[in-house]
């Protein structure tokens, strides 16, 4: 019954989204047939396009998992974008500082530092919330601006590649590249890491006492206090884990794709991750599926732009519509507190 209703709702959403997309395509006077085929070819048309979707989904999954841990604990982390940048910076710093290390040491170290970088960056708003009650929604957004601009400064100064005129870091050592798992595409080990992370987050949140505490704090902080669960400690933990996973997303982008630090390393992954967490209902499995869907939407719409001239920003409009639809769905009318 519940399942059928959910299915019906999903069908309705799909229909509405298609209608909006069609309206947009017609509004820019493009050929709908061409646009549709361009979209489908881009997202699913070939081996390569599918691999591109997976590449795109990787950071979304990681950051989305991070966001979901925060949400479930009552830490509304809007700062995944900045945490991705910080994680990327930390990973790059490892490569620049220890270029001589063997891959087996360097790569895990870089990922770990990426996690730590994002985690520490996010733990600051976490601390400010748990200690002084500052709203994390505000502080994490502000931290995004700081992080992005810090990276801008770094790639123009201490981390700049002196042999190159553009603001970017030198190439990172070969030993730091995440192995490609599907030649000749760009699909790298990051996807596997993301899927393992999804499993780990599921295990943490639903099987361990630590996850139970975080969920309790998210659902009822006052009741948690009475039960002897520390609200500040769990907020801090959740903020660190949340930012850590976003930082890992940044590190994975550096070691898997770019192999150097540059501005614009994330085209808003941190914000899209919030949508992925929302659509995936904060459940790891749901987040993986939502991330894949969003990635397909984005990759497909880029190809649609090339094929039919429909601007790829249509994907953002569609995502906006999606979020509104999901939020508009009232839970159960019968679910009144009694």
């Amino acid at each position, binding site marked *: 019954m519940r399942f059928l209703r959910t299915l019906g709702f999903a069908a309705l959403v799909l229909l509405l989204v298609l209608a909006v997309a069609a309206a947009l395509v017609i509004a820019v006077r493009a050929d709908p047939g061409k646009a549709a085929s361009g979209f489908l070819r881009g997202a699913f048309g070939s081996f390569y396009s599918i691999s591109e979707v997976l590449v795109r989904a990787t950071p979304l999954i990681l950051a989305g998992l991070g966001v979901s841990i925060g949400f479930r604990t009552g830490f509304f982390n809007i700062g995944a974008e900045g945490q991705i940048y910080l994680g990327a910076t930390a990973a790059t710093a490892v490569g620049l500082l220890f270029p001589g290390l063997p891959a087996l040491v360097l790569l895990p170290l870089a990922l770990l530092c990426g996690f730590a970088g994002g985690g520490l960056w996010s733990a600051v708003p976490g601390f400010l919330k748990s200690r002084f009650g500052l709203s994390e929604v505000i502080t994490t957004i502000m931290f995004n601006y700081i992080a992005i601009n810090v990276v801008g400064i770094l790639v123009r100064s201490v981390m700049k590649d002196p042999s190159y005129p553009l603001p970017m870091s030198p190439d990172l050592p070969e030993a730091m590249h995440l192995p490609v798992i599907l030649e000749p595409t760009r699909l790298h080990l990051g996807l596997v890491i993301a899927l393992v992370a999804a499993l780990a987050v599921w295990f943490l949140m639903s099987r361990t006492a630590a996850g139970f505490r975080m969920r*309790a704090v998210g*659902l*009822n902080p006052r*009741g948690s206090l*009475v039960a*002897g669960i520390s609200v500040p400690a769990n907020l801090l933990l959740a903020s660190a884990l949340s930012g850590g996973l976003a930082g890992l997303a940044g590190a994975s982008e550096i070691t898997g794709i770019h192999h150097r630090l540059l501005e614009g390393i994330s085209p808003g992954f941190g914000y899209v991750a919030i949508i992925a967490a929302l659509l995936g209902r904060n459940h790891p499995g749901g987040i993986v599926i939502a991330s894949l869907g969003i990635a397909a939407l984005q990759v497909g719409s880029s190809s649609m732009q090339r094929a039919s001239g429909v601007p790829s920003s249509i994907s953002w409009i569609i995502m906006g519509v999606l979020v509104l639809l999901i939020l508009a769905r009232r839970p159960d009318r019968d679910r*009144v*507190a009694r």
Partner: protein
Amino acid sequence: MVVPAMLAMRDIRKSFAGVPANDGISFDVGEGEIHALLGENGAGKTTLMNILYGIYAADSGSIVWRGEVLGGHGPKEAIAQGIGMVHQHFMLVPTLSVSENITLGLKSRGHPFPDRRRLDTDILELSARYGLDVDPAAKVASLSVGERQRVEIMKLLYRDARLLILDEPTAVLTPGETDGLFRVLATCKGQGHSVILITHRISEVLAFADRITVLRDGARVATLEAAGATAAGLSTLMIGRELKSPARRTAPAASLPRSAAGDRAGLEARAISLRPVAGKGLQSVSFSVAPGEIFGIAGVDGNGQKELAECLLGLRIPDSGKLLFGGLPVEGLGPRQRKRRGLAYVSDDRHHDGLVLGFDLAENYLLGKLDDPRFVRFGLVDRKACLRGAGGAIADYHVKTRGPTEEVRLLSGGNQQKLILARELSSGPAIIVAFQPARGLDIGATEFVHERLLERRAAGSSVLLISSDMDELLGLADRLAVLHRGRLSPAYDNDGSLDMMRIGLLMGGQGMAEEACAS
């Protein structure tokens, strides 16, 4: 009734996920009638009233209100039609003031910038007329449950409801306040208002109701005139058996191993003081509870009970004074460590303090067992053990539920309370702080809880029972004291010599200063 009923509900049916909560109930209320609705926890009383008030839509059945068919209505329409409801669990906005809550959603004169001072005067007038003591400017968050109750009732009176639905309104009131409330209701009745009263207290029903409807397992078993009813008859209708005589002490205090445990008090408070916030603090509160003793704290809710309970739990830190568990100081220990020292805590506010409503029964059971290696090993939750534990609690405490994986939010109020008690008492605690533990429980369950507390007393627990229900205290406590405006009176032995007049006066604050000086 000769006059056409003001309200007629016919053959109301409502199921939740296939399980009927209302199974064809017919029910009517006349003009100027106080109609009591009785029934065990989970019998379907709240559900029926929620249907009337438009919160739920009935699966089938009809409602006729003052000659017109009501259907597809929501609470907003219900209020506009003159039907008002005070819920079992209050629905106030804690961050707003009392007066803002009372006028919430109303387009008062000057809307949207009403003249707050005028509204406050109106409210004060109304509160004086009905004897409901509220401070319009106070923030609801700073109020105790009892005070919130008063605000809820004020809210209805302010809206001029023709039919007042009160879901367990007296659960948190003292006898004095209860009498006050019923005076209010009698006045309303005189002016043609009708009242539907849900309560678990048979004595109230017999004294104040005109007619009584008894529900059991979602069906109506009887509607009778209060005049001809008896307590024994009603309890038989409700629970299918006669109630044992109201919880009396099973053994006199003297015969208990109280002195055998030595003079080490199980729980001792020495001159606990708490600076008043919003008028509520504690002034040098001292008492001690021996192992095997039930110490009662009486008084009108909102006189520092919550503050005292929270000092004992470790949520608040007293400004001065000493707290000892089993003779050892517990300064600097938080709730978790204190629970490890053998404290069990039953709060008066189950939705905020006692439960996580979005969790299922097993998870809520785990909430009190996080340090118990039977449920958590190496940081991993043993889900099977939790299900088993919750299953045991359900069986032992007769919690009415579909099973340990049901969300606690969906349980009836009394059944939620039973789960908390089962969880807190199952660990064999040395110290029990029970704050209104039987609030909202039906007569059978209340009796059951009282038996459990007496059992813990016999097992040597030190039980602190904070209650505004004098009958409960007289039935259970070995000694009792009165808390008024943050001061605790000297303790009196609860035996034949107890001077009820004096207790009553103390609860009203009279004689408190002299008593405190004398001690």
